[in-house]
């Protein structure tokens, strides 16, 4: 267990001062027309240049780099002309946590977090004979003789069990996709902005029943970059700082391939551990969270996160989301850029950029009023993490 006194010193010890994203919607349309804008490194480099410009940080100040997606530490640093002291690879939530701990400890002052992925134009497969990710997650490939493949199918099986235990319906689940689409309608950089109601959701084909087409995230190209530094360094930079106030991580790896943590426990033991630390460390009470950003490669991620973190009680997630609470004007805004379902599948990275935008007050038509604390939650494959960000 984490030492509570020690980690209290990590609160607000690092902040996001720069964000850069590629043109998701434009690149998606270009690819539909047969053109490809970049490879993964090109998207990463575009995002990096935009994040640097946004922040006012000079490239020479970058002394650590965290990468994600199908890019290598060495090659992206070579491409960008950076010789860091430290590199690491991590998913979006853990990347922010890695950078925050480097900065808080004094091992690094300014960190670039860089993601680039050409998954659509490059034809990345998330299921079937060429499914990606099997080297790290045995469950992605082990059950192929029975036809069981893809992260989507695993989440479909989880949701089916939730239906059986609690009476949750597919229509209730659809309200998550509908809410995120409503947010995306006011985001010019979202790939999917066409209005979608619950009837349109239900009319779409099944991919892996009980999940339908719009329960699945997009597969599109893009890149995201965050620049993080010390709060004292942020004072003379271009943007108001967004503080990393609290974070926690917990994994459920025992019996992961047998699927017990997801199918039997809905990852709740990991949610419980993370929940216990993240609010205490941040000093932010759950009731003071203004919005959530939830890793949403599938709609039901959101349902499980809402229950696991106590935004509604166990088994009540379906009824909760069906009230419309997650969408514009709702009581608990979730994935306000449109998330990975409607904005862009940047594997949690676009969520961090949207958090910074909202907390800076730069989210345009979808800007939340009086927004001061936003929580990120991710539980992909039982690797649960949460971060609470604040702007004051």
């Amino acid at each position, binding site marked *: 267990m984490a030492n509570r006194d020690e980690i209290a010193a990590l609160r607000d010890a690092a902040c996001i001062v720069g964000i850069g994203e590629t043109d998701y919607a434009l690149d998606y349309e270009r690819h539909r027309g047969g053109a490809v804008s970049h490879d993964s490194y090109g998207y990463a480099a575009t995002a990096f240049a935009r994040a640097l410009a946004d922040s006012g940080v000079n490239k020479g100040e970058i002394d650590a780099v965290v990468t994600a997606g199908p890019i290598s530490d060495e090659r992206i640093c070579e491409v960008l002309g950076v010789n860091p002291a430290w590199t690491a690879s991590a998913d979006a939530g853990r990347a922010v946590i890695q950078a925050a701990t480097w900065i808080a400890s004094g091992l690094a002052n300014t960190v670039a977090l860089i993601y680039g992925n050409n998954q659509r134009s490059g034809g990345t497969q998330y*299921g*079937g*004979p060429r499914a990606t990710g099997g080297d790290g997650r*045995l469950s992605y*490939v*082990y*059950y*192929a*003789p*029975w*036809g*069981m*493949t*893809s992260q989507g*199918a695993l989440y*479909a*099986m*989880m949701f*089916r*069990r939730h239906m*059986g235990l609690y009476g949750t319906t597919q229509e209730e689940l659809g309200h998550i996709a509908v809410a995120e689409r409503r947010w995306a309608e006011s985001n010019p950089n979202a790939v999917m902005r066409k209005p979608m109601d619950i009837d349109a959701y239900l009319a779409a*084909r*099944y*991919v*892996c*029943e*009980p999940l339908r087409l719009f329960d699945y995230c997009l597969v599109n190209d893009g890149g995201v970059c965050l620049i993080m530094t010390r709060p004292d360094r942020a004072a003379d930079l271009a943007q108001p700082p967004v503080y990393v106030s609290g974070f926690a991580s917990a994994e459920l790896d*025992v*019996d992961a*391939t*047998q*699927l*017990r943590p997801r*199918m*039997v426990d809905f990852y709740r033991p990991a949610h419980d551990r993370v929940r216990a630390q993240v609010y205490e460390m941040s000093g932010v009470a759950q009731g003071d969270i203004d919005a959530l950003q939830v890793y949403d490669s599938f709609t039901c991620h959101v349902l499980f996160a809402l229950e696991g973190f106590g935004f509604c009680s166990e088994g009540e997630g379906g009824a909760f989301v069906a009230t419309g609470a997650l969408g514009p004007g709702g009581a608990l805004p979730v994935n306000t850029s449109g998330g990975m379902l409607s904005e862009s599948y940047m594997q949690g990275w676009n969520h961090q950029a949207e958090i910074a935008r909202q907390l800076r007050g730069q989210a345009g038509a979808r800007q939340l009023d009086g927004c001061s604390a936003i929580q990120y939650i991710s539980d992909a494959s039982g690797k649960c993490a949460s971060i609470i960000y604040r702007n004051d």
Partner: protein
Amino acid sequence: MTSETPARPQPYDGFYDRPFWEHAARYELRLPRCTGCGSYVWPAAPVCDACLSPDLEWTAVSGKGKLLSWVVFHRQYFPGIPTPYNCILVELDEGPLFISNLVGLENDAIDFDLRLEVDFLDLAEGYTLPVFRAAG
């Protein structure tokens, strides 16, 4: 079978996996079990995850269990497996969770807590697939 017929995927051929399929070919469902503490280890692994003993024995299980959840694939991911087809999660009476297919029942008739028993399908691809049927 003609050579043009798409094949089902072959079993995952990790260092410890082959005995599972050799037993299946003899219509036996066997899982590795720790001879020290009695824990089942599935999928096969170098050591028992409870006590770290390397002494694991391929132990016959009853082949009986109940259905915890299921999905029906509508998108075709594998050329050799026509859609729609189901995948089920079985809780074996001995405890381990096992992914398989349910045969002998329409997909629309699948339901929670169905009692199941193992059966074996000899495949043209050269291996025998453990599947489940509703218990008689």
